């Protein structure tokens, strides 16, 4: 057993867990954050993607204790109260989901992707970057549309902020 202690969605949390506990199980079972899904459980599908210290990782392929001391963001940490995160809003607007099971991982991957490409995204880049996330419903088309739209909205918003600051 180890003490696992990290900041999740801005809140410091801690708890005891067996060393073999996977991060995804700690999030879901100890913290009740069931937005992060277990899909394939073999690190292929990306339904379990969360951000650890600002980087998208597969929480089914990482021990909870490995993340101790880190900052973790899950799908529950994106929206600001009732206001959806721009990526969540874009998935809603462009119908980037059908059953929704892969959506939390898709959105966490998308926010990481957009942050790593401040120069903007094109369709080929989005499709390549989605390699680690599998969707069995949509055929990806609307997911790609949603990510491209969110990338544009977020670029505009950050330019607006920069103008305000100036």
């Amino acid at each position, binding site marked *: 057993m180890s003490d696992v202690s990290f900041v999740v969605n801005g809140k410091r949390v801690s708890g005891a867990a067996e060393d073999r506990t996977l991060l995804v199980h700690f999030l879901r079972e100890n913290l009740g954050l069931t937005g992060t899904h277990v899909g394939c459980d073999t690190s292929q599908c990306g339904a379990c993607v969360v951000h650890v210290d600002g*980087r998208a990782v597969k929480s089914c392929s990482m*021990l909870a204790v490995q993340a101790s001391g880190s900052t973790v963001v899950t799908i529950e940490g994106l929206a600001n109260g009732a206001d959806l995160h721009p990526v969540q809003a874009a998935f809603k607007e462009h119908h980037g989901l059908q059953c929704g099971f892969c959506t939390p991982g898709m959105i966490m991957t998308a926010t990481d992707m957009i942050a790593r490409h401040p120069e903007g995204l094109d369709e080929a880049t989005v499709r390549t970057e989605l390699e680690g996330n599998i969707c069995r419903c949509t055929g990806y088309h609307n997911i790609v549309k949603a990510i491209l739209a969110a990338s544009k909205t977020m670029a505009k918003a950050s330019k607006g902020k920069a103008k305000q600051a100036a």
Partner: protein
Amino acid sequence: MYAVNYHRAASVADAAKLMKSGDAKLLSGGMTLIPAMKTRLAAPSDLVDLSRIKDLQGVKVSGKTVTIGAATTHHDVANDEKLRKACPALAHLASLIGDPAVRHKGTIGGSVANNDPAADYPAALLALGATIVTNKREIAAAKFFTGLFETALKDGEIITAVSFTAPARAAYEKFRNPASRYAIVGVFVAKGKDGVSVAVTGAGDEGVFRSKEIEAALAKNFAASALEGLKVPAKNLMTDIHASAEYRASLIAVMAKRAVAAASA
């Protein structure tokens, strides 16, 4: 996963000490080891986590000498500006491993120590004539990769870095399995002051190897056209559900041609 005791090493010396506990294994990014433990293909009693040791992270380029810390992630190798200038082929290779989330965790040291027969880095290190630096000694890549998942590492020995001299020209071309993204055949071509070397991953019965036939042809003329009609022998190549030995032999020549063209561009 069977029960395991986790230890976070503060330094390489600390890790070496911790490795003496039970049947311990080193943990770096864990992108192979954790899935292997989940399926009980691996069941170490203890895990010694190297990923937070700062000394093991980062890329250094000094003149033509490139040194990459063992705990540097694929993402950081792919995006290092100094490396992209000194040896863009290696940065490009790192960008082709797994997917973005895997590249955020997986490390060069972990990949090299695991020596998966379809891993990308072994081809690069063998073709670049790299040195694998451990906490005990320095090992030439040619002596390091000894077979499928086998290396010259002794029990408890820890890779701290890999280093090599930046080649004049190099490129890596990979024919990926469409599902797993692993190389069915990957060919790394490097042209440096010691001539041309060509290393092949994904195809060999005994893991990564150098293709003498292709090297001989390219030594005379470093051009894709020098490989026209060249037959790579299928002997000692793998046959599995994805590709026969003959198909792999053919792919080696095709990937080598593409790599030479890319290196010459």
